[in-house]
């Protein structure tokens, strides 16, 4: 691993510390929301996870671009890991979003919540990324095709967001509207710390998973070299 990157242990401890701080602020410091009550606390985990998912998809796309621009072989694993983590956080967003919808509106799913629907579309899109990746022979061709698809994903995010907002104008008159909750100072502070901790956690997971995949690749080379 290039030395310029902060060491993994420092990051891991940082993530652990930040997460505990966030938990304390969310449940002890931040006051309960006026109308939603205690269930509003889901906001502090749901929204940061969604933002982290976007960040992971963006990282995956950036690494894919680097692969295409510089033919650097190492970017393929990085792009793959980024998209993989993005998908995990995407699923988490869907699940926590559904729980929040149940808590505040009594329904597990609502088509009028633009963000939820967007993550459903992205989930379908990025599952197809893995289907594509596992059905092409390993090699330069697979790396480039996966990279192109990852780049399309990032273009799809804003386009789908507008499509869904446009769709909501005629599929369902918006029954459940929820503009961003009005946040007091402590709430916003708790949100920021929670966001930072989840982002850092995601980066640590990214670095750990990437290291695992790199060791796998090196082992294959080693085995080939040592095989009689």
């Amino acid at each position: 691993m290039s030395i310029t990157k902060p060491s993994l242990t420092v990051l891991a401890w940082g993530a652990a510390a930040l997460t505990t701080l966030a938990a304390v602020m969310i449940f002890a410091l931040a006051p309960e929301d006026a109308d939603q009550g205690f269930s509003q606390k889901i906001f502090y985990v749901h929204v940061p996870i969604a933002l982290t998912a976007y960040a992971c998809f963006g990282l995956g796309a950036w690494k894919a671009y680097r692969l295409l621009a510089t033919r650097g072989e190492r970017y393929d694993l990085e792009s793959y890991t980024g998209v993989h983590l993005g998908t995990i956080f995407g699923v988490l967003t869907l699940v926590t979003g559904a729980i929040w919808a149940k808590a505040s509106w009594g329904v597990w799913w609502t088509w009028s919540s633009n963000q939820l629907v967007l993550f459903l579309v992205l989930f379908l899109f990025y599952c197809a990324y893995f289907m594509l990746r596992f059905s092409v022979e390993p090699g330069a061709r697979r790396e480039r095709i996966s990279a192109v698809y990852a780049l399309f994903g990032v273009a799809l995010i804003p386009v789908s967001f507008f499509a869904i907002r446009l769709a909501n104008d005629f599929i369902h008159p918006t029954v459940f509207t929820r503009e961003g909750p009005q946040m007091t100072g402590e709430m916003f502070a708790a949100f920021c710390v929670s966001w930072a901790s989840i982002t850092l956690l995601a980066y640590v997971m990214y670095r750990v998973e990437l290291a695992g995949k790199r060791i796998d690749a090196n082992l294959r080379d080693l085995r080939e070299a040592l095989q009689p």
Partner: protein
Amino acid sequence: MSSGEKYVAAAYGVFVVVVLVWVAILATKLARLERETGELARLARARPAGEQADG
């Protein structure tokens, strides 16, 4: 627990569970890697000295 608290617990619970599952998957991968590096180390030691030169 009121229904609100149940849902909050569920949301945070899911988050923690998913992270733990991810850790578990990494752990199994680590175990596999450990076993494989062991095998490779034996293979490397078992090779006759001569052949090691051209590696």
